[in-house]
């Protein structure tokens, strides 16, 4: 099993992601600088971590979406490789057009940083299979622009196709339909605002995030 974590200038959860993947799955994790034009051979999982890539200039994730490595990430998505974008990584995936919708300023204008309860809306994706039988899990959010937005037609399509994967039990930021995480139509690209990388062992308050990395790599 091989995973890669992409490091953008301003990423700040890249090492958390590496530790979370290593400890929860035992997989080998390569750190890939955003200027790279290749990904490690045979990579099974690519993670775009949280942070403030390019200082959130222009729009969160807008500049990172144009990084050289993103051409490779898009190609890998096309080959069916599992890709997870967490927080800023989710914003980058939306900006790159790999996921529908966008993340806008939180409804209350506040940066929200706290553990949140999540409904596992779809436990039949390759990222959530390990949550089968679990109605609720806990992870931490930390975002100022985590308010998921998509037009009504897109929201209906996402709901109808089972692409809404996680939903907040209590909406922390005004997200449409309490959406916390979505997958693409093929089911191999996941974006979520809560941090599984901050919830991978009981000492962190929750180990629920470990299951996400385990599921993603088990399906590889």
């Amino acid at each position, binding site marked *: 099993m091989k995973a890669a974590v992409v490091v953008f200038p301003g990423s700040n959860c890249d090492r958390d992601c590496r530790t979370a993947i290593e400890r929860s799955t035992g997989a080998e994790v390569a750190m890939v600088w955003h200027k790279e034009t290749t990904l490690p051979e045979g990579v099974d999982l690519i993670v775009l971590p949280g942070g403030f890539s390019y200082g959130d200039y*222009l729009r969160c994730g807008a500049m990172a979406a144009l990084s050289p490595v993103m051409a490779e990430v898009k190609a890998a998505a096309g080959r069916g490789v599992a890709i997870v974008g967490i927080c800023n990584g989710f914003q980058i995936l*939306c900006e790159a057009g790999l996921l*529908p*919708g*966008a993340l806008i300023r939180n409804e*209350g204008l506040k940066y929200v940083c706290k553990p949140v309860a999540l409904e596992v809306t779809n436990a039949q994706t390759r990222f959530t299979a390990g949550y089968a039988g679990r109605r609720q899990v806990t992870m931490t959010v930390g975002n100022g622009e985590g*308010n998921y*937005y*998509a037009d009504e037609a897109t929201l209906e399509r996402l709901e109808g196709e089972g692409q809404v994967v996680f939903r907040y039990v209590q909406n922390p930021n005004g997200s449409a339909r309490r959406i916390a995480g979505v997958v693409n139509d093929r089911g191999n690209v996941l974006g979520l605002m809560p941090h599984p990388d901050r919830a991978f062992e009981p000492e962190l308050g929750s180990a629920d995030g470990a299951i996400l990395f385990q599921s993603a790599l088990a399906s590889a």
Partner: protein
Amino acid sequence: MRAKVHVFLKEGVLDVQGKAVEQALHGLGWADVGHVRVGKTIEFELAAGDKAKAEAQVQAMCEKLLANTVIESYRVEVG
């Protein structure tokens, strides 16, 4: 040629900054203020002889980078 791009959240997308500014203006006594929108302006020089061509280029820039048309609308001025 000088290009100006104005970017705003689309109608229907919640502009929380606009709302906060509106409330602050009301608090200062400007009770008649309504529908405040906060956006941004991006300005740059563009070497192009033809105004129509320049506009087409700037429009392409907006679609690719300067605006996220999922949530934002934009207006281009070239001159």
